[in-house]
């Protein structure tokens, strides 16, 4: 089957970021169904190393990283660059830190 590099924003149902408490950011990629989840997982594109590169955070600092099939989702939790709401804050709720994930491209069947 012919595939084209397709961004996750065209594949996933949800790509979002949010605080998980004042010291962590958590990122969720939720797929529409098991088939899409499996296909993205098997592509091998989404790895701890990729997250480390996209968010400029060492792999050993990543708190949670995993494909969770019960919820057809990838979950990633990172330390916050600074405690929530303090001096120098850029995103109080960490609600807009998801964009690098939605731009990840995986090989996908050509439309």
């Amino acid at each position: 089957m012919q595939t084209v590099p397709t961004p996750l924003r065209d594949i996933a149902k949800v790509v979002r970021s949010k605080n998980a408490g004042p010291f962590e950011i958590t990122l969720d990629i939720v797929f529409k169904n098991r088939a899409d989840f499996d296909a993205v997982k098997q592509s091998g594109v989404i790895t701890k190393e990729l997250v480390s590169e996209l968010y400029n955070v060492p792999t050993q600092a990543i708190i949670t990283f995993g494909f969770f099939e019960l919820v057809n989702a990838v979950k990633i939790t990172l330390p916050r660059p600074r405690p929530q709401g303090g001096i120098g804050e850029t995103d109080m709720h960490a609600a807009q830190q998801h964009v690098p994930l939605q731009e990840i491209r995986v090989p996908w069947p050509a439309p």
Partner: protein
Amino acid sequence: MAVASNDEIRILTPSGMLGYGFPVDHFKMGLALKPHAITIDSGSTDSGPQKLGLGEMTCSREAYVKDIEVLLEGQRAGKVPLLSSSAGGDGTNLHVDVFRDIIVEIAQRRGWRFKLAKIYSDVDKAHIAKELKAGRIEPLGPVPPLDPREIEAATVVVAQIGAEPFVKALDESEGVDVIVSGRAYDPSPTAAMAIRAGFDPALAWHMGKIMECGALCAEPVGRNVMGWLRRDHFEIEPLNPAERCTTASVAAHTLYEKTHPFLLAGPGGTLDLSHCTYEQVTDRRVRVSGSRFEPAKPYTVKLEGAKTSGYRSIFIAGARDPIFIAQIDEILAKVLAATRAYFKEVPEETYRIIPHLYGKNGVMGELEPVKTPAHELCIIVEVAAATQSLATAICGKARTALMHSPYPGRIATAGNLASPFTPLEIPLGQACEFNVYHLMKVDSPTALFPIQVEEIA
């Protein structure tokens, strides 16, 4: 009051956040299903440290009055206890008393009587310092170890209430109508009702975990939600007929704002959802089973505290000139160095100047992968200093320096910035910072949390 049978306990949660409002007709539909308790949380650290740091509340007092009046009306109509947690958002003693005063006000105005139990959660700083010395306090997640100076600096420190203090309050005050609690783990009121009636703590915590967000587990997301907890499962359904719970929406709910999708640590243990089964019972109702709970030994509670960290002022300005934008980092470095030199009598470590460059990396800061700036920038310069007037003075110097700074290739010699607002420098008041976010071992799950019962007439 409906008594939970051996087979089922029913809980009604009208909203994920007391103070945000909720549809009253759906709440009444829930009351018609004869719940054994109404539970509602108002806690969150999500809108920032200024609540703990400065004693602010998440919502306005007026918003709390509106919601509490509807809840009390439901409590009376259904003769069902109302359990509310994390008063005011941070759950300090101060805000438990604000909620208590609101209830008194409404009771007097409407001629109602209530038996009220209050559970307080402020923790004595000397006690925390003693426990720290005894090695009984650890960081929670990516947080530095607790420094005794930070305990002192915190405006107030609260501990999260588990299920046990709610059980105790229900046991000790026969026929209690309303419980107002300080900072609680959000699922605690629901879990306490079920655990007290003898149901499986794992199912009790899991149902509580879902219901504390109201009908956020539904599609589309909503407010009022009803839970039925039985011996080996629970069921969950939104009260708005236009919403439905699906196996996917309920299973995925525990992703939201959580570190891990299946392992949820709380007071006294960890909920493990990795072996759960989700079944569609009707097109709007989901049955959940297989939740597990691993008790923590020893029992730990989460401490939360925040301190004030000086005063802030900002200026907001736009930039449109591509010659300027292309050199923004170099220009700013020069301007900030000049500002620091001008204030050379102020010790460097006592103030901070932080530029936010929207159109470049204003949202993501150091995490931003895109390096090319947009055709226009919004520049916000944040200054934090020991006093408001000093913060504003430094901010003003930085603004005028940036406005008039020469730079290579400059042909717009009248000014570099487009200023939308006066005052040009905007004082923001005190800044706050979370500085306690730690786990403390305790011998008793209830000892930290005093309970007071009063009759309100």
